[in-house]
């Protein structure tokens, strides 16, 4: 910083002589006065626009920094008439180097921003979104394929399976998730029962509440709620973990050591999830049924033994199987989406956030689509 003792307010004085204008700059041309300086430039541009600008006297400048120098350099270009740009004269020696350095770079006219047709921009965005959706599907399919390959390889060579890692992840996604899953499914079961009693009572069909709670929980709600919870809880953490490993080149490091990141990092995570989800689904369904039973008893006045007797009539093992069969497939989808998104993370922390959000949204969406496909399938085989 070339700061001299005297910090004086900046000024720019215009004098006109035979149709050409001279400017005289003085005072502190520094960041502190940048507003005033910008105004000077605007004024100069307005008044000198059509005239030839002969020279800019800078002898009065007592302080100059890169901000002032950039503006001074812009001042030489305010005249729109043909001919060479104005020269800066009388600049104090101690500022000459700084001005020359700044002028060299700031006087380069920058390319005008390209103008785009609005419709074209929207079409382009639509096209890009379509292509990226297709890419997403492809990368999910690729991830599923890689998981299958890694799984087959581990089947052929069981000793290469990372048991410790899988158990560690199982602890995190299953054991540590139990309390929250139990709580949420308990509440959902209770709410369904309460709503059922409230509405069924109007036409005296109270006891059919048990049918509704039993079938709904075992076939759909139990597995769906648990899968959505797991996608939000464990899927997001998988994406964030893998994503930050990708950012710090840890995954590249694994690869160069001759190890397959899918086998080392992804397979144990996915397997842990595939084991965890049926367990959590079972616990969740039981908890939801318990919640329903409590509400039927306390709110609907139906004794627990009646509830259980009714439940035995209403549901069969098939309903239970339908829910349980779906859960490992949902786990696979959640795991594959989470890991595929994690590997897509690029260098920035912003992209980590974006991919984590995308992972949860896509996983939940696919879980619901998968549930729909299973519903059609089970209906057509009469299950």
């Amino acid at each position, binding site marked *: 910083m070339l700061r001299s003792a005297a910090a004086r307010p900046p000024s720019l004085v215009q004098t006109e002589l035979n149709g050409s204008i001279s400017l005289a700059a003085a005072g502190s041309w520094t960041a502190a006065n940048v507003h005033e300086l*910008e105004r000077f430039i605007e004024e100069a541009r307005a008044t000198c626009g059509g005239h030839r600008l002969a020279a800019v006297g800078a002898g009065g400048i007592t302080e100059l920094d890169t901000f002032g120098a*950039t503006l001074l350099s812009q001042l030489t270009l305010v005249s729109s008439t043909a001919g060479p740009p104005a020269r800066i004269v009388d600049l104090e020696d101690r500022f000459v180097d700084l001005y020359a350095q700044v002028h060299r770079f700031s006087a380069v006219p920058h390319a005008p921003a390209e103008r785009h047709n609005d419709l074209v921009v929207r079409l382009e965005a639509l096209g890009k979104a379509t292509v990226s959706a297709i890419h997403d599907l492809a990368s999910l399919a690729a991830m599923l394929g890689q998981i299958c390959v890694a799984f087959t390889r581990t089947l052929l060579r069981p000793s290469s399976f990372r048991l410790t890692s899988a158990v560690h992840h199982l602890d995190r996604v299953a054991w540590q998730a139990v309390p929250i899953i139990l709580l949420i499914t308990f509440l959902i079961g209770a709410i369904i029962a309460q709503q059922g009693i409230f509405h069924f009572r109007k036409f005296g069909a109270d006891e059919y509440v048990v049918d509704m709670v039993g079938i709904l929980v075992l076939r759909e709600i139990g597995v769906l709620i648990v899968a959505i919870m797991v996608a939000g809880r464990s899927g997001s953490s998988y994406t964030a973990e893998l994503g930050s490993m990708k950012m710090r080149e840890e995954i590249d490091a694994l690869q160069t050591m001759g190890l397959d990141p899918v086998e080392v990092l992804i397979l144990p995570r996915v397997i842990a999830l595939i084991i965890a989800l049926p367990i959590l689904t079972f616990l969740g369904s039981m908890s939801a049924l318990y919640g329903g039973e409590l509400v039927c008893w306390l709110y609907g006045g139906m004794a627990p033994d009646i509830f259980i007797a009714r439940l035995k009539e209403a549901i069969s093992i098939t309903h239970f199987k339908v829910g349980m069969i779906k859960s490992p497939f949902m786990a696979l989808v959640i795991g594959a989406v989470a890991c595929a998104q994690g590997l897509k993370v690029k*260098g920035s*922390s912003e992209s980590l956030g974006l991919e984590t959000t995308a992972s949860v949204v896509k996983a939940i969406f696919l879980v619901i689509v998968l549930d729909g496909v299973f519903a059609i399938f089970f209906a057509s085989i009469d299950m």
Partner: protein
Amino acid sequence: MDTLISVRDLVVGFGQRTVLNGVSFDVRQGEIFGFVGGSGSGKSVLLRTIIGLLPVREGTIEVLGTELSQASEQARQAIQRRWGVLFQQGALFSSLTVIQNVQFPLREFLNLSPGLLDDIARVKLEMVGIKADDHNKLPSELSGGMTKRVALARSLAMDPELVFLDEPTSGLDPISAGDFDELIKTLQKTLGLTVFMITHDLETLHAVCDRIGVLADGKIVACGPMETILKSTHPWAVSYFHGRRGGALAARHLTKAE
């Protein structure tokens, strides 16, 4: 000549361990002051203490005429705007482009028009040798040398009087490191900067620094221009400056001085 940084009897430690034990030195206006010391000798701790990231146990640090630990929040912020810091890894904001990184402090502290904001940032980037093609890249797309240059441009964004550099040439190849030394020297001259740097790089010390402080055992064991340092008898300084790698440079320096 004015003193920009004045450190007196500084003691810094973590828990039981004392890292800096009675460090005193001055950095004068317009000089490039280099700090050396072995790995783990507390160089980075010293830098982080001066810029206020670590607490002081004893002693005083005066930067730009203000004792920072005593200063009010406002006074401290005013001082912080008058210095720039280049972190070892660049510490660029990963979600902003190169030019946005440089614009960030300008946008926060000065109310500039968008046009001028672009112009100033472009000038700063060109000054450190980043070409227009690279202005819209993200930090993750830059090489190590470019990251350091962009980080330097960002630290210079507010036209600071004082710049702190944490190992500016570490991780660069000798040619890039040489260019970076040259750049620091040129900018120091044109912008009238005072530079406080921490470095391992013997070449940088020889080529750029006006004065050097040597940190060992939590104290400054030698301080002064290169000639003084080369005469130091402290064992660490001797093995560093006259050792396997330093010896040749020292010999060259002495012949040049004669």
